[in-house]
């Protein structure tokens, strides 16, 4: 930009030189200096004025581009509100706006169609899955079944169950993403943790896992109670599933819930971890959707989720 600005000096200097030359050619000698001075001064004013005007235009264009960036930053693909830009006196900016609106509309349509598809697909899958399960259950009851047949039915059942669970997780995700949980209230996460640990009591006992709790304060969050329960359940379940020691630790303070377990070093980076379907290859039964659910719940509840591994200690924290 600076080099371009310096270029203004060239036409100004040229004009001055040409002016001098013309004056020298046609003017009587004693007028020459006064005329030259006037010419010089007016040319200078012209130059400065020219630059000032350009500067003003550039600033206005920059402000308008800033406005556009601001609008784009606020843009939420989930919100049905139409994106609008202020009309600009510059045609080039208007043209840019038109293109942006067109692209946004198209992206939004694709996104909605995609989302709708996932949602419909998982809902439509529910009934056929239930029917398959039902028929297998009925077949199981028929007399004269042999071991081979039981084995086959067992395999069908197991896989259908996996599909149902996966499907249920997808439906839950799409519900969260569709903001179906809007019943925000003050939720005491300490109490929620108590309740859920109670549900896991049997499991913890069977796996000989001790829960070390440290409560420094009451962590209250404005969020959906149902989601809070799912969130804490998923965090605890995740910690138990990947645990390699005989304890997990939970720390709760006024603005932080933290759960940690000792585990294998994960082959996934913290960023990859939250992507749907990414999972550690060694833990077979996990569906890889649990962490996505954790993350989405945090997003819609204005919480921050943090994950780090410190010397094989996997720590999840929400703030």
């Amino acid at each position, binding site marked *: 930009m600076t080099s371009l600005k310096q270029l203004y000096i060239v036409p100004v200097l040229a004009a001055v030189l040409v002016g001098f030359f013309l004056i020298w050619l046609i003017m009587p000698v004693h007028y020459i200096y006064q005329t030259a001075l006037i010419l010089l001064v007016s040319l200078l004013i012209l130059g400065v004025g020219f630059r000032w005007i350009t500067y003003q235009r550039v600033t206005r264009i920059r402000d308008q581009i800033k406005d556009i960036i601001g609008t784009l930053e606020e843009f939420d693909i989930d919100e049905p509100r139409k994106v609008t830009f202020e009309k600009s006196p510059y045609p080039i900016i208007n043209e840019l706006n038109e293109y942006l609106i067109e692209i946004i509309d198209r992206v939004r349509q694709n996104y909605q169609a995609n989302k709708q598809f996932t949602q419909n697909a998982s*809902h439509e899958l*529910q*009934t*056929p*899955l*239930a*029917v398959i*399960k*039902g*028929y297998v*259950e*009925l077949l*199981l*009851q028929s007399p004269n079944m042999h*071991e081979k047949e*039981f*084995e086959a*039915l*067992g395999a069908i*059942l197991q896989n259908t*169950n*996996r599909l*149902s*669970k996966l499907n*249920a997780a997808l439906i839950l995700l799409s519900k969260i993403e569709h903001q179906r949980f809007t019943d925000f209230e003050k939720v005491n996460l300490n109490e929620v943790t108590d309740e859920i640990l109670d*549900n*896991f009591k*049997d*499991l913890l006992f*069977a*796996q000989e896992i001790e829960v070390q709790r440290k409560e420094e304060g009451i962590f209250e969050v404005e969020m959906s109670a*149902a989601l809070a329960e799912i969130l804490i*359940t998923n965090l605890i*379940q995740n910690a*138990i*599933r990947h645990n390699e020691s005989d304890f997990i630790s939970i720390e709760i303070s006024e603005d932080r819930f933290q759960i940690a377990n000792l585990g294998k070093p994960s082959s996934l980076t913290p960023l990859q971890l939250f992507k749907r379907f990414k999972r550690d290859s060694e833990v*077979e*039964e*996990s569906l890889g959707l649990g962490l996505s659910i954790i993350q989405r719940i945090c997003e819609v509840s204005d919480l921050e989720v943090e994950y780090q591994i410190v010397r094989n200690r996997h720590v999840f924290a929400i703030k």
Partner: protein
Amino acid sequence: MSRGLVLLIFFHLWLMKILLIEDEQGLTDILLRSLKREGYVCESATTFMEGYKKITNYEYDVAVIDLNLPGGDGLKLVKALREENTQTGIIIISARNTVDDRIGGLDLGADDYLTKPFNLSELNARIKAVLRRKTNQFSKELIFGPLSINLDERTVIAGGTELKLTKKEYAILVYLTRNKNRIVTKDALAEHLWGDYMDEAVSFDFIYAHVKNLRKKLTDNNCGEYLKTIYGIGYKFDV
């Protein structure tokens, strides 16, 4: 009147009548087959109006009602049925699983609420529980030879001695007896005991441990032969 007809009418009065209001044909078929197998007399309706006509014209012991019906909300049927008749047990089956739906349904007088998809053995157990509460035909005691389970006092007596069962062992035993002579799958048992909380692999280990303890207690009192393991699938209470 022929003897057969009299017998038929007598049987009809004696058997439990169940109405199933559900619009998914595939699910209706499977549920009817499962219920008939248990010896209930079943009728089905696939729309709101059909269901409404049936509940206003006939009497049933249990009505199983889906909430999403063509032609109207199943909750209205629950309400209508409750106003008409207080004896009929009502079980809602629904894919809607919000707390509001659940509470709304139970407030209107439903006896139970089952979220889709569910296991056939779960519906079977719930129907029996509702029937026991609503009618006197199902006694508070389940008796199988030397084994008797008192459902009110939650005690189990085998061969004259009272068994000391844990909560989970008792729940497993009651669930299996409610589905007697049927194979109950491990996952149905897991869902019955813990809902959706558990990981499959973990809960199966867990059920295995509980059933092992339960079997030992039963065997020690000569009741072990009722409890059969169907390898890889689940368990069966054989009478």
